[in-house]
């Protein structure tokens, strides 16, 4: 029987396979950041261990970093200590670090791919659940805890329990205005936040093949929100074109050898997935979340669901609690939901294409009165590219705040937070209670929807702008 893409990559990394034990896998690339690594370095020190492969390890600062006044000392002493701890650990153990202010600094999942370090057929880990992003290249990439970070630092391997395989096949063409973000939000709503538990998802089908690398990263990024261990897309010409010439991409004969290997990384025709989900691209529409987990989503054109409509009692209770927290009522049209803040950024939607998409919507328009729009590029490189294209000026002219790179309001570890009761339309990945600030309320959206929402002041898509010429498309409620 043939093998799936995930099984091929897994098999190529088995260091040790013994009946009754988890496979021991070799890790090709270990990404580090300041939040989940300090206790791991402490563990190494306590046991007199070294970092086994500093040449496969790289660190950046992202979760805590401020997005304004980056030339000044970090105001929060606890954040400052954590960043200083990472700098000290990297210096002591010989790990390459891109700190705040460095040209390669940025969100760890934006940095790896843009350096060309994320490659097809590799195993990639990081103490961050959104490591699934790197699966867009046909890498087997997953988030790990701090104990595992320590394990990889010490051994460059991980013992891993077997996984199941799931195919999410999206056929056809995405309708105009429908993005990778809408697609993945729809997938999560379909299979649920636990539906992917134990699975590596492979996204396939013609709609996936047509996606750019940036869009593929958006899709794979949110695999974790469906509970999946990883998300993957088979590498193809789009992948190879993205990689060729990047700083850490293979060169010369190595490129040829790598390419020959990468071209074998496709699920065999006779391979069998443990579970399959099929989605028609034509049926997708701009999608937003209404609740407090990423599986609580609906088309923008619909209304807040009635909790009583959920057959499963725990879904019903979860919906009731979510509506109470979100300050929404059943039946309310989603387009009438007014927001205070719009956040464009994160490892989900902080890449150059996302900024271009948002800029194209706000260009020549103004952010609505009383709405704050934050644009936070995913990395310094993305920021520089955006400046070169004049996107920063487009955002500033529209009344948005153009910030420095980092995780920012995705999780509010730095000062970029929602105040209690404030509501956001956010291109990030989690709408959990308090995720963007204590008492904050989050609606997950695409960059296009975020930008249109900023202009109109309520959840909206760019299509709502054209017929309204910038004026509110709906009566206030």
């Amino acid at each position, binding site marked *: 029987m043939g093998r799936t893409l995930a099984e091929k990559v897994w098999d190529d990394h088995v260091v040790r396979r013994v009946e009754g034990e988890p496979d021991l896998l070799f890790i090709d690339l270990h990404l580090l950041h300041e939040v989940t690594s300090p206790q791991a370095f402490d563990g190494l020190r306590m046991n007199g261990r070294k970092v086994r492969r500093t040449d*496969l390890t790289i660190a950046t600062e992202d*979760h805590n970093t401020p997005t304004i006044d980056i030339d000044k000392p970090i105001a929060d002493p606890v954040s400052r200590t954590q960043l200083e701890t990472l700098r000290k650990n990297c210096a002591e153990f010989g790990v390459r670090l891109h700190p705040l202010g460095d040209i390669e600094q940025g969100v760890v999942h934006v940095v790896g791919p843009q350096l060309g370090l994320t490659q097809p057929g590799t195993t990639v880990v990081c103490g961050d659940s959104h490591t699934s992003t790197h699966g867009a290249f046909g890498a087997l990439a997953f988030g790990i805890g701090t104990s595992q970070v320590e394990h990889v630092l010490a051994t460059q391997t991980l013992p891993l329990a077997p996984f199941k395989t799931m195919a999410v096949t999206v056929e056809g063409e995405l309708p105009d205005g429908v993005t990778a973000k809408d697609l993945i939000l729809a997938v999560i709503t379909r299979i649920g936040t636990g539906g992917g538990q134990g699975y590596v998802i492979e996204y396939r089908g013609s709609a996936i093949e047509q996606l750019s690398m940036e869009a593929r990263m958006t899709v794979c990024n949110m695999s*974790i929100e469906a509970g999946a261990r990883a998300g993957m897309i088979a590498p193809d010409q789009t992948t190879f074109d993205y990689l060729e010439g990047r700083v850490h991409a293979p060169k010369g004969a190595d490129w040829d050898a790598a390419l020959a290997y990468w071209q074998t990384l496709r699920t065999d025709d006779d391979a069998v997935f443990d579970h399959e989900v099929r989605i028609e691209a034509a049926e997708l529409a701009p999608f937003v979340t209404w609740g407090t987990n990423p599986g609580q989503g609906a088309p923008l054109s619909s209304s807040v669901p009635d909790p009583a409509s959920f057959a499963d009692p725990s879904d019903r209770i979860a919906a009731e609690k979510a509506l109470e927290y979100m300050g929404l009522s059943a039946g309310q049209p989603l387009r009438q939901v007014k927001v205070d803040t719009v956040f464009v950024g994160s490892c989900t939607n902080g890449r150059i294409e996302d900024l271009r998409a948002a800029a194209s919507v706000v260009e020549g328009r103004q952010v609505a009165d009383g709405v704050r729009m934050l644009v936070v590029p995913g990395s310094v490189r993305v920021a520089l590219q955006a400046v070169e294209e004049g996107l920063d000026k487009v955002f500033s002219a529209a009344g948005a705040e153009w910030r420095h790179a980092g995780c920012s309001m995705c999780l509010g570890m730095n000062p970029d937070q929602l105040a209690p009761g404030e509501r956001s339309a956010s291109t990030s990945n989690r709408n959990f209670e308090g995720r963007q600030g204590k008492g904050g309320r989050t609606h997950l959206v695409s960059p296009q929807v975020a930008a249109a929402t900023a202009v109109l002041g309520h959840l909206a898509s760019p299509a709502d702008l054209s017929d309204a010429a910038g004026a509110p498309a709906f009566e206030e409620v």
Partner: protein
Amino acid sequence: MEAFTTHTGRAVPLRRSNVDTDQIIPAHWLKKVTRNGFEDGLFEAWRKDENFILNAPEREGATVLVAGSDFGTGSSREHAVWALQNYGFKTVISPRYADIFRGNSLKNGLLTVVLPQETVEQLWKLTEADPTAEITVDLVAREVRAEGVTAPFELDDNARWRLLEGLDDISLTLGNEADIVAYEARRPSYKPSTVQV
């Protein structure tokens, strides 16, 4: 790691599904660089509500958390496990966990037991009606016992052995150094390196 064989204690019935790691330990607690001192951050937002079950005086000293499905979803933060342990929980029972949280828990000796929703419901009813009711989680017998409940649970032999013995994964792996060296020797030269170019 602390070994886990069997544990008996009072319970906190947490009637919620999708308890994500941002609820278990909010992000601002993640700035700490230690593995301890997270007890006050556990369910910090929910504990502001005086009716939240963890605030009930009769739940003080409880060591078994019985939660709804999809416990520990979201972020990979191991701080969620440390917060539960720092607070005093020895074991969690739920119908389903997020993978990363489950892995983290077992690496720290916090036994996460999977039981069917119906059994969780039974345990909720029992411990809601009688806060002094005790639950025994027996890893040797792979069984949960409480008044009127005897429920077997699954945990693979290898994970169980490591928990029973309190073994350190890194030491186990370093015992296979020769396998790692052999793999490294046959690794293709085109694989990425982080060495600055």
